[in-house]
């Protein structure tokens, strides 16, 4: 099986996880979306050499996984897919940034290494909370929540269609690549020319499909307004406590470096 095949089959797994019924699953999606947004904002706004101050943020994904019983190994594998992209962004930092910012024993550590590590930690944190959000809520529900929070309807619909047809499109893509591989007799990979033509064909087919979908929508009375019947969530006290509690923690952790403070406390009590 092609690697890409497996990755997308796994997406369906993510969907199935979202149909469970734990207390966290039942929480109004808006609370989860806003809390995740607060988390991401706090994490990405740290200085580029920050490492220790971000570590306490691991608490949030850890608590969510533990409380909802999501399969940890599965989430970890999803995060590992994202890490190489982050590595590409950070990998040149050690080349360009050779300023020594600390010493560990004999070794001088360049700023580049620290910032590269910082990028990886950020990627891990933000990817994990995003994946957990989808696994706890379900993509269509997140779209509905974003819309209720004021995102223009057109964007919400776009996202929904993207999610619906990514499966169909990958199916088509995978079939085309397979057909190509079966006739390339052991030569690995696609040449740029082949790749270009393949992507072009996929685009044209997507175009055709979009037209047929539009036809099917018009045939059922579509007039530009998108109606949905999703579950009407209620933003109650549970949601308020969840969102308020976590967001407050994130902001405090952003303002004060907890590991350093703790370390200071210990050092203070020892001296």
């Amino acid at each position, binding site marked *: 099986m092609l690697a890409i095949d497996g990755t997308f089959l796994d997406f*369906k797994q993510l*969907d199935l996880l979202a*149909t469970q019924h734990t207390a966290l699953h039942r929480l109004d999606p808006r609370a989860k979306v806003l809390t995740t947004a607060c988390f991401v904002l706090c994490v990405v706004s740290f200085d580029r050499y920050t490492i220790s101050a971000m570590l306490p943020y691991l608490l949030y994904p850890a608590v969510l996984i533990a409380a909802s019983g999501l399969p940890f190994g599965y989430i970890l594998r999803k995060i590992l897919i994202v890490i190489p992209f982050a590595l590409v962004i950070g990998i040149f930092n050690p080349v360009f940034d050779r300023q020594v910012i600390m010493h560990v024993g004999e070794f001088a550590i360049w700023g580049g290494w620290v910032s590269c590590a910082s990028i990886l930690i950020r990627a891990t944190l933000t990817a994990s909370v995003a994946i957990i959000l989808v696994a706890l809520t379900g*993509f*269509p529900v997140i779209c509905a929540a974003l819309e209720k929070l004021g995102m223009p309807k057109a964007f919400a619909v776009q996202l*929904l*269609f993207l*999610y*619906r*047809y990514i*499966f*169909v499109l990958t199916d088509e893509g995978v079939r085309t690549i397979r057909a190509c591989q079966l006739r390339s007799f052991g030569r690995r990979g696609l040449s740029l020319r082949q790749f270009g033509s393949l992507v072009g064909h996929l685009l044209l087919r997507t175009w055709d*499909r979009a037209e*047929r*979908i539009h*036809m*099917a*929508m*018009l*045939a*059922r*009375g*579509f*007039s530009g*307004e998108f*109606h*949905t*019947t*999703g579950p009407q969530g209620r933003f109650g006290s549970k949601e308020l406590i969840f969102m308020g509690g976590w967001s407050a923690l994130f902001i405090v952790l952003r303002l004060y470096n907890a590991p350093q403070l703790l370390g200071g406390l210990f050092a203070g009590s020892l001296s």
Partner: protein
Amino acid sequence: MSHHKVEVRNLQHVYPDGTVALNDVSFRIHHGESVAIIGANGAGKSTLLLHLNGYLSATSGEVVIGDTLLARENLAEVRRTVGIVFQDPDDQLFMPTVFDDVAFGPLNMGLAATDVETRVIEALGMVEAVELRHKPPYHLSGGEKKRVAIATVLSMLPDILVLDEPTNGLDPHARRQVMALLQAFHHTRIITSHDLDMVLELCERTIVLQDGQVMADGPTLDIFKNEELLHACRLEKPFAMQACPVCSPGRRTVPGRKPLVPPHGDGYHDHEH
């Protein structure tokens, strides 16, 4: 006033590139009739279907649904009356769940939420798919997708059902299921297909298209008996009407090839003559 009849008068459709897809097509389909439209690839079947709910507009000629002449002003009404089930269910099922998809039409018609729910459950019940309502469409099998696609149209309570290749790509069991469903409906039905055995079972009348023109229009059995006509239109008798391959081995083989089944003494010949 009856909504259930369809009349097409001298319909012509020319695509922007100059291809004449339909040329002077006329027919009249009455209340409750089940009519097949057959023809080779490119004969104009799909173009014709798209005219029946006003997705395409005619180069010349007219389409009358019930007593209404199809025009821009009454598109909404016509699209409610004529429910089209497209060939690829992936094009028809675009919402996050089966329920949302079946509710799409009724919601667009402006029904209240409770009415929508009743309609959806009713429509899913008719295709025996109520238990699929919370599933996303990409978790369904081919046969399930097809039945749900039919439900998305039934929920609008159409008077006329138009189905493009309803049995295409289904396994024999799913094909039988869909056929049984269609047989049970009392709507006026218009079906295009290359599955001529299905046509023989479901449609009492058949219209044959060739190069955008009506070549024949009459009782299905008469048309399938006319071998000359079928041959000229690149069609073939349904398998059910062809001779038994064992008793007359020459009839179903390609010229120059040996018959698939030896003439005598095999274990598969299960009927007496």
